[in-house]
């Protein structure tokens, strides 16, 4: 639907675009509040391990999440809180995973951003960058082998991940099989502290597309109004049989790599440039200027998002952590093959 809506200029459909835009904005808002809550819990020492935020990447992420449908495959990355929510991940899945609740999808065994529900098409990332692309390919191959068509698989990666062998093998594999894969590269100009010029030497990452024989395009990811149709179109092209799509999104990470990092290495000139704009503020401005939301509505949405996050966190904080004594300590699904550890 998103696709149809976003590609018809017809008058009557402006209101549909508005609906999508508003929905997207509200997911972004929720993701931002959620992230901020995690950051504050981290500062209070209530989260074990790292906290990784999507600040600045919400417009891109939500556009991808909304472009996908139920039944599609999504392998999000560390900065995809917005896209996850839009794709259908519950607030409590993320809160439970970060807080290590035994009731969460990972039951405290894995944490933070390493969550997912494979059976719902939401693949849980491993940390090794680039490694999820071929896993998405496999899910798409399975659908093809089963005779199911019309599905799309999407994988998020960063600029840094483009240097991995996995990225290359995954993209090439998808191209050879002409799979309905969308790879979205959030080029936030840094991989941890490493700037683009120490990561690659091509003029633009989109120049890689031709080398795989796939379609590529680049976009300004600080602008939700641009992201929504671009991602919808990329997903639609994949869905309709045009093969893998490479989307390169320009943005800046408006926070540290993780909350332990002050990001002091980010070039102030970049921060001050258009790519350093906060996509949430840009979207808010757009809403206001287009008359789609007034300050009262915006404040109400904000309040609602804040409440949702507070409620989810308050609930999960009362949930039990995993119990090592009832844990079965068996990595195999075939429990009869378990060896006791020694």
């Amino acid at each position: 639907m998103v696709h149809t809506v976003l590609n018809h200029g017809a008058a009557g459909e402006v209101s549909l675009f508005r609906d999508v835009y508003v929905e997207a904005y509200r997911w972004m808002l929720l993701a931002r509040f959620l992230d901020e809550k995690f950051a504050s819990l981290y500062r209070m020492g209530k989260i074990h391990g790292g906290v990784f935020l999507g600040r600045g990447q919400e417009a891109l992420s939500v556009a991808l999440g909304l472009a996908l449908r139920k039944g599609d495959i999504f392998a999000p990355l560390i900065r995809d809180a917005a896209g996850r929510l839009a794709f259908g991940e519950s607030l409590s899945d993320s809160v439970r995973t970060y807080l290590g609740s035994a009731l969460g999808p990972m039951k405290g065994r894995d944490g933070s951003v390493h969550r997912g529900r494979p059976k719902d098409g939401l693949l849980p990332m491993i940390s090794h960058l680039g490694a999820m692309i071929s896993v998405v390919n496999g899910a798409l191959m399975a659908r093809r082998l089963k005779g199911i068509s019309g599905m799309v698989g999407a994988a998020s990666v960063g600029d840094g991940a483009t240097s991995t062998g996995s990225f290359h093998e995954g993209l090439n594999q998808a191209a050879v099989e002409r799979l309905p894969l969308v790879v979205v590269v959030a080029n936030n100009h840094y991989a941890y502290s490493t700037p683009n010029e120490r990561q690659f030497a091509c003029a633009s990452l989109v120049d890689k597309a031709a080398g795989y024989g796939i379609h590529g395009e680049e976009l300004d990811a600080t602008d939700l109004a641009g992201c929504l149709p671009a991602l919808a179109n990329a997903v639609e092209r994949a869905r309709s049989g045009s093969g893998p799509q490479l989307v390169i999104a320009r943005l800046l990470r408006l926070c540290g790599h993780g909350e332990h990092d002050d990001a002091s290495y980010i070039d102030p000139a970049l921060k001050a440039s258009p790519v350093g704009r906060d996509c949430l503020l840009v979207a808010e401005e757009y809403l206001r200027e287009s008359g789609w939301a007034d300050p009262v509505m915006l404040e109400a949405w904000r309040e609602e998002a804040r409440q949702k996050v507070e409620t989810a966190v308050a609930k999960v904080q009362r949930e039990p952590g995993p119990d090592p004594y009832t844990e079965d300590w068996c990595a195999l699904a075939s429990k009869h093959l378990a060896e006791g550890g020694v």
Partner: protein
Amino acid sequence: MSITYLDAIREAQARALAEDPRVFIYGQDIGAFGGAFKATKGLAQRFPGRVLDSPISEDAMIGMAVGASVEGMRPIIEMQFADFSTAGFNQIVNQAATLHWRTNVPCPMIVRLPCGGTSGSGPFHSQSLETIYAHYPGLVVLTPATVEDAYSMLLGAVALDDPVIFCEHKYLYYHLKAEQLPTEATPIGKARIARPGRDMTVVAYSAMLHEALAVAQELAAEGTEIEVVDLRSVKPLDTDTVMASVARTGRLLCVGEAWPWGGVTAEVVARVASEGFGLLDAPPRRLNAKDTPVPYHPNLWAAHRPTARSIAAAARDLLGL
């Protein structure tokens, strides 16, 4: 009729493809060409669209299998040689092996590794890599030593809900023959007594089983009865069967073709020493390959890995003969 170990692997795959629509095979040159060793010969023709040539991308090959497995398939990945699986190592040990534990969603898939040494194959086409996979939680590592086991354990692996590293020995591919394929399934994870005996236990697996059996025969002629245990599966390791044998014989020699540091022989000896210390009438012994890459030249190769000769020497020594 005479069926080789390689035939058995091909037939098991054919049967799995025929009986289970979830099965497909993916690997380099395995389609029309039938694979470097012909382990999939004819299968692409018989099962169109389900025996697929992959690019030379071991990492993506494994990732593909994991994704397909999550969606309910039962992929079989053929590595052209076990040695090249190191290029897909990360996806095997971090993606496939952890998925079920992290998500509770099983990850059934098989990685077929043509393993082990053959003369003239050199450092990069001869490796025995069971150790590096068995060390990681979440993987089942099988090492069939007979034609029958190659067949039924591969079918058993297809039925299993976990990622299986299936170590096929290249020397056995052509050298081992049987009259017919088994009709019974081999229970995964159980060792077997390949030859009973009362004087000492030799634990072996894969190609080394046959060296051990040759030694048992040689020593039998001299009145010494060696019990040979075929591990079949190195992870899980069937400690019970090993322990029961050592309880009968009081002596243990464990033989493997892999490198000496860590691995199967260390694990077996350590388990018996710690859990069955009182059963031992003599120090347990191990025999492994030498601690260098696998050599190219046949002279070096023959001296690098254990053979019936070096096993016999160790056995005699242990028996005080």
